[in-house]
């Protein structure tokens, strides 16, 4: 009983429901590949837009059904300080897929070792449609600078045996040399009609009728994240099998939690409150919610609730501390520093004090 998201995921470029021009383009690229002409690619777009689906479909187009035979390997790498790093690698005969963020700060080692190894081996399968192998790098925007620099050299050097497909949420965290070496593929979030169509398709495959208003409610709530929408549908269906009555689309726990944290920040500004907010942040972090997501969700909520005059400042500082969070190692400091900054701003605004000194 796999998840609907997985079960009804399109398998080929033809099955895709939206972004048809993109699919056509990918098809033509893939057909070009037999003449040895296939670029490195960078897929980017918000989560739940269908990047991975499109990548896998393209792979299937490139290599045929053989690419669906996957195995998971555990590979061990040695960090410079001789610590062992274990990284899960998904691979078929034709491609290999890594999530370098699993290796944390040592992602450079993993990228280098792995790419070198693949680049140095030739495809030996005579039936293989393409002579090159494909390396998929997930969450490429979380690669460290070091790793990106390492990647850049490799991309130039080993073009003959290997193509790289990067998958990222945003290109802004990738260094320019990498962007310029890739063919950029933007996968935008689907619009409401596209999502409606997909949801109807899924419900038909599962075998029930999905009232359009329920679907649109879910869609409204999902913010263009199709995966989230389908998961939500599945959860809803499980809770009330007939999809009738008053349906409350439950937000994920952590989202509500973040909103309540924002309310805490606004309702009181004192050192004691800072400690309480810190507890909440610790709680969120220990539930594996990425700190950047926490900051964004809380900041969005705070901005909704404060006066126009300080909205810009709140977001400005959120951006500042988000950058610091990315560089630094102890996330809680930066989250908290932002909270304190907002509290201070809010308080000063409240007492009508001059704000110029905070710029």
């Amino acid at each position: 009983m796999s998840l609907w998201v997985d079960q009804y995921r399109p398998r080929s470029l033809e099955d895709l429901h939206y972004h048809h021009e993109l699919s056509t383009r990918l098809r033509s690229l893939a057909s070009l590949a037999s003449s040895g002409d296939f670029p490195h690619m960078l897929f980017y777009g918000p989560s739940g837009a269908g990047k991975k689906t499109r990548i896998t479909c393209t792979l299937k187009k490139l290599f045929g059904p053989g690419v669906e035979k996957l195995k998971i390997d555990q590979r061990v790498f040695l960090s410079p300080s001789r610590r062992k790093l274990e990284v899960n690698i998904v691979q078929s005969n034709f491609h290999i897929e890594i999530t370098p963020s699993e290796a944390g700060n040592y992602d450079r080692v993993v990228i280098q070792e792995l790419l070198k190894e693949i680049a140095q081996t030739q495809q030996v399968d005579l039936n293989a449609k393409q002579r090159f192998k494909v390396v998929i790098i997930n969450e490429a925007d979380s690669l460290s600078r070091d790793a990106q620099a390492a990647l850049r050299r490799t991309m130039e050097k080993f073009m003959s045996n290997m193509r790289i497909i990067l998958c990222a949420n945003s290109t802004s965290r990738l260094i320019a040399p990498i962007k310029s070496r890739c063919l950029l593929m933007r996968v935008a979030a689907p619009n409401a009609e596209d999502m409606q169509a997909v949801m109807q398709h899924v419900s038909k495959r599962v075998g029930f009728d999905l009232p359009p208003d329920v679907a649109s409610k879910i869609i409204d709530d999902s913010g263009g994240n199709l995966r989230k929408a389908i998961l939500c549908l599945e959860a809803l269906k499980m809770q009330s099998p007939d999809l009738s009555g008053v349906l409350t689309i439950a937000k994920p726990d952590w989202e509500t939690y973040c909103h309540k944290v924002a309310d805490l920040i606004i309702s009181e500004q004192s050192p004691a409150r800072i400690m309480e907010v810190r507890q909440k942040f610790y709680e969120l972090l220990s539930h594996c919610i990425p700190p950047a997501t926490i900051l964004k969700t809380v900041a969005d909520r705070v901005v909704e609730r404060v006066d126009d005059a300080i909205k810009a400042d709140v977001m400005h500082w959120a951006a500042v501390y988000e950058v610091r969070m990315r560089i630094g190692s102890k996330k809680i400091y930066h989250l908290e520093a932002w909270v304190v900054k907002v509290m201070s701003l809010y308080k000063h605004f409240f007492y009508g004090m001059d704000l110029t000194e905070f710029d």
Partner: protein
Amino acid sequence: MPARPSQRSASSTKSTGKSASQKRTTLKLEPSTANTKRESSSTPSSSKKKGKEKEVVKDPASAIPQRLNTQDKSQLWVDMYEPQSEVAELAVHVRKVENVRNWLRESLDGGPSGKLRKYRRVLVLTGPAGTAKSSTIRVLSEELKFEILEWKSSAGDTFVNAPDFITTSSWVSDDTMFTKFRLFLERASKCQNVFKTSPTPLSPYSSSSSSLNPTQTQRIILLEDLPNILHASIRSQFQDVIRSLIENADPDPVPIIIIVSDSGMRGEAGDERLLNGAWGHDDEGAFDIRSLLPKDILHGPYVEEIKFNPIAPTLLKKALQALLSRHFASQKSLITGQMLDTVVESANGDIRSAIMALQFACIRLSKKGKGANPQVLMESITRREQSLALFHLMGKVLYNKRKTDPSAPSATAKDIKKDQELDRTLEDLPALPPFLSEHDRKTSRVDVNTLYADSPIDSSLFSLYIHQNYTQFCVDVDECDGVADWLSWADSSGGEAWYQVNPYRFHLLALGTLHSLPTPVPRLNQKVCKPEFFDNLNKEKEAWEGVRDVRSWIVDQGSDNGWNISAWTPTAIATELGGVLRARDVTSSSMPSATRRVPTGHRAFSRLRFAYPKSDRKSIGGQPLNEGDNGEPYSDGAIMMEEQQEIGMWQNREERERDRVVNVADTGGWLESDDINYF
């Protein structure tokens, strides 16, 4: 007994000659396990004693005059007054000695039931340097009448005997040294001594004499001078050897005692090493039992760890007094009570250093006569690193005392006078121009450079402590803003690469905090707490375990050839899957087959309940820091965890495997009814 003093003094004579002339005569340690010992341990006994022993009080009275006559001037008191046979002489807490004694009894005789022997294979003694770990064992060996087989690396000899060999010897020796070590262990644990040793207590230094008593002496193996286990391959070899010794079912095992002194986690070590261009965080520096033995051995049934604490000031003082009264038996002691107090205070529970300081003071005092100022002298002798306790460090920073601050109500007259004196030495800072007037502060009484030099913790931990506690010391959100911003800035100022920690982080943090805190800090009975950071890191790690389980569950479910695994990144699972998982939890309770169920691990991340803070609760959180706490305030493994954070939460396979086993074992009980009611 009558044989001993003379024997002992014979050995002392030799070592005296040695330490005086720096030439090493070799005191043959008669090999107790035939040739192994011979090849490995012709180390002079004093080279050992010099560093490792701490003696406390007295020797049998008969020995004293002899010693005083011959070796008064040149021998170290540490060697002269090492306790020999009486437990009462040890400055260790009685209960600690009792623990060790019990273990030894059980390992030698099997305890009351006679069955424990099997499990008493390895005893690990840990603790800071100078806490009488080795002395305890030696004294107990007298008391319980067992023989100590001790491994001594001969590397030191090579250096001394062949100075021109220095450049190469360290390279040559590693491997062969280890082979010797292994042979030593194997033979020592298996073979009986050909020359049966006499049951009469002998000084362990001349360990076995040639007495031909047929009764068998019980033996233990003492490992104090370990092979170079900082070297990764040597370490794994070492672990293999220990493991194989533990695991073989010898009916008559020889217990092994490993003594490891915790090397001080010297404050800025991390930063400084990085400054020098060194790479890794790990492997270097902190060498302790956790790096010596892997977890499964250390926590296994065969190994027991006994931690020695720094010696309590009262015990230390008593021991020193006894030592002095013995030393100055006939004359007036040069050391005054106040000086003794200074020594005790500055020793931080390290009895060896205390005795050294005493001896040094005596020498200086007797030379200079009355002219020297004892106060100055004591200060120069007792100044040690690491003498600023964490508790005081935090107090200094967080109370942010500045010139002319009124004293705390609890301050004694002495403290007030001290403060005033300090104020007199502080210069007033030039006034800032008007547009910077908000940054105007009085001169701080805290000297950050001294603080840095004396800090027992590194800057990362320091920042965690500040982070945990600063809010209590702030009156206003703006002050908090200053501190929080500094914390954030210092944490992220290292640059792009992960290994570049800002070398000035400690200073920046201390100064930034001092600047931001209100002056004076209101005294509200604040309690400094230990950082909660590590607990939460632990929780996060567990939650990632859950994510991992769910991911492998998805892979299993993706029946048709697992085509979909790749789409699920850990983050996506953690943030988006919660709802479905919870819904599944409810519905799947009726499902018969366990394999279809979602692994319960997901609850670690999918559930998050918000509890509004109670207004009456004063949420300082955390565990209060005590005066006695030293640089290692966190429970075991915090360092590891911090490193782990650097590597990424996803990495931790060993534990994952272990947890999985546990999970499987619990299969029956994972959906309790109250869990379901939850929804």
